[in-house]
């Protein structure tokens, strides 16, 4: 295996980490309107991710930075090609981050309500748009001989990619509901479990459709295995949720995300961004990657930093392991 193959895997790992972690915090954001009945309940939900959402988001920055360094051509084509959707994602992430931090800084009703709208929409839209983006990457887009995206925004809104968007949205929301049931107490915990069941069933239908489509179109044996793992894990997550085994349910909804992302990257390899115009214009791990020297340095960095990150981020989850309920939310600030 060459270093650029290793980096393909590492970038897949970073995106997987991002979707696993920010997946549930996007889900929590969406659930503030689907699940919570009043402001204290919304606050309970938001506080389940309070200490960790920022750290989760850095997985995106790492995926972006690593793509820039390891596959500059991929980075350049992807972000200049998907310009407007990416702009929308960035705007959402900006508003969402500010909303978490600033919502409680004033007591006025209108102030708090506005930030709550921001948290909902700015969680929902990126959760959907990331699926659309990855749907398009896997499907292939109009890339010309100069590695430039020459399609329009409307080309990105095709049925396959839109279905991909619905899958990430429902899967992340399911993942978030399971996380909510794992981290909360009382009434909201019970409702989170019931909501998770509904969301899990919707996700199952959408995911089987999307992953099946992917498998028929691009799949091989390894992607089929990943697909089966994803579907089985989703089913297991649903069962565990019904049984009230919240930890297991969360582990399985996580495995679903890991397997689904793995499947997408497996169907992609050795391309990083196939061209729908001409196969010889595909961006591949070899024609889009950095020099061997850069990859070697990056490998050292990732090899040392990633385990440490997992260690101290894991510790954070341990420190804040206690469940919270409305009784833990203080009024004044």
């Amino acid at each position, binding site marked *: 295996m060459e270093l650029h193959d290793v980096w393909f895997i590492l970038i897949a790992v970073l995106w997987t980490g991002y979707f696993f972690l920010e997946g549930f915090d996007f889900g929590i954001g969406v659930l503030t309107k689907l699940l919570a009945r009043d402001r204290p309940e919304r606050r309970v939900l938001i*506080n389940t991710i309070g*200490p960790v959402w920022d750290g989760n*988001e850095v997985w995106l920055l790492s995926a972006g930075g690593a793509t820039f360094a390891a*596959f500059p051509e991929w980075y350049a084509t992807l972000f*200049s090609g998907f310009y407007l959707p990416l702009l929308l994602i960035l*705007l959402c992430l900006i508003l969402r*981050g500010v909303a978490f931090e600033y919502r409680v800084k004033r007591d006025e009703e209108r102030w708090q309500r506005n930030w709550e709208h921001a948290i909902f929409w700015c969680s929902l839209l990126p959760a959907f748009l990331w699926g659309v983006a990855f749907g398009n990457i896997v499907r292939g887009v109009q890339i010309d001989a100069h590695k430039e995206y020459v399609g329009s925004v409307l080309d990105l809104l095709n049925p396959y990619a839109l279905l991909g968007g619905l899958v990430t949205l429902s899967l992340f929301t399911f993942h978030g509901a399971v996380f909510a049931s794992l981290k909360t107490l009382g009434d909201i915990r019970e409702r989170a479990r019931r909501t998770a069941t509904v969301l899990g069933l919707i996700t199952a239908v959408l995911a089987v459709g999307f992953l099946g489509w992917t498998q028929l179109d691009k799949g091989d044996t390894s992607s089929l295995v990943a697909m089966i793992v994803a579907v089985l894990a989703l089913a297991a997550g649903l069962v565990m949720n019904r049984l009230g085994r919240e930890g297991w349910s969360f582990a399985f909804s996580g495995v679903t995300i890991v397997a689904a992302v793995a499947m997408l990257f497996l169907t992609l390899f050795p391309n990083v961004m196939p061209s729908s115009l001409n196969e010889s214009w595909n961006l591949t791990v070899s024609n889009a990657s950095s020099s061997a*020297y*850069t990859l070697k340095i990056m490998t050292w960095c990732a090899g040392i930093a990633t385990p440490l990150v997992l260690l101290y981020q894991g510790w954070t989850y341990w420190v804040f392991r206690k469940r919270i309920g409305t009784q*833990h939310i203080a009024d004044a600030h």
Partner: protein
Amino acid sequence: MDLALAPETLARWQFGITTVYHFLFVPLTISLAALVAGLETAWVRTGKEKYLKATKFWGKLFLINIAMGVVTGLVQEFQFGMNWSDYSRFVGDVFGAPLAFEALIAFFFESTFIGLWIFGWDKLPKKIHCFCMWMVSIGTILSAYFILAANSWMQHPVGYKYNAATGRAELTDFWKVLTQDTTLVVVFHTLTAAFLTGAAFMVGIAAYHLMRKKHVKVMRTSLRLGLITLVIAGALTALSGDQLGKVMFRQQPMKMAAAEALWDKEAPAPFSVFAYGDVDKGHNKVAVEIPGLLSFLAHDDFSSPVPGINDVNKSEQQKYGPGDYRPNIPVAYWGFRWMIGFGMASFAVGLAGLWLTRKKFWLAPGLRTGDEEPPNLALTKNKVLGVRLSKAYWSLAFVTLGFPLIANSWGWIFTEMGRQPWVVYGVLKTSSAVSPGVSQGEVLTSMTVFTLLYAILAVIEVRLLVKYVKAGPPELTDDDLNPPTKIGGDHADADRPMAFSY
């Protein structure tokens, strides 16, 4: 296409706007993280309540500020790919690595430990809680280091070779990128300027409260800490700025010639303090000059020749082919002066404050003040005059609290615009760096959207800062004074509200 709305022009405006805006928050974040960590350490070591109050007060302002720094940083990482895709293709091999290091090493540190610090008051023993803030502080400094290494490579590319087959710059020596003189001097200068910024902010706000005789105990401590930091950081900023100037005279003679609006070679070269007239056309209506000083700044002696804009333009034409290699001269000229002027004004305010608040001097013992009253800044035994002078200083310190922010902004505008027409000096022109596939409408959309959003957020942020500055330090509760002794919290009452919740 109308040149004013060409995608390149718009992309440059967008980069300028988003970067200067982002950099309003970065220096405050870097310095306040360390200052808050210092205050919390003082609390852990002495147990004095004033330190805990100060930690909470400055910590809150720090959090309002870092939130904006983090979210505007997102834009910085992705706009290289969005607006500058040919730049990204050309330099990704070199430039991407420090960026990835920044994310993997610094951002994870910052973001994870800030979460622990915000929510950890009732979950972590005080030493570990304090340790978390130090981790945040280290994260911010590492982040500055990596991004400045990347930027320094654009100013002075080293450790790479051009690969004609792939048509891009490829890394050959990463260590050199991280340790070249430009990087080290720029890091030093930017960090010292960051501390100048945070210190002026602290001094200004402390002065605001002291003028009103409110929260005196906490604010006296803050004032003293701020003043000492301000003076040390100010002196080091000047020193590092001088070093940076010398490096730039060697590496980017055009930038420094433009900074001086020095059109033709002079020996000895004078430093222009203020030029009246059209610096874009010539240097003939100069008002104030210091003879020989420019020679000194460039070469450490008062007589060596310094090449002018026309000389450098000619030599660059010989080296890189026909073209105009002059940056926007008025921006470089005035940007350089405003940077130095605003930065040094702040340093002067700090020096005056430090001297006025010294413990001993010829103040009569009756004029000295205790912990519970504002320091008496009187230079006279005349009480009425003394009160007036004190008030004048407090107002001055408050009014100048944002001066270093202005200096920082002009510093960046000067250093980035002074390098034009190059994006990577001597290697890649800015006009060859933009995204060829991105339309005018797309760049115009994103520039408009970011500018509007940033403007709205600026209003929100400033109002919040004002609200929390006015509110002053919080009253401490028993929970604040008795932090948990084990990780995860040890309060017997499981239903106790969280110390902090969103």
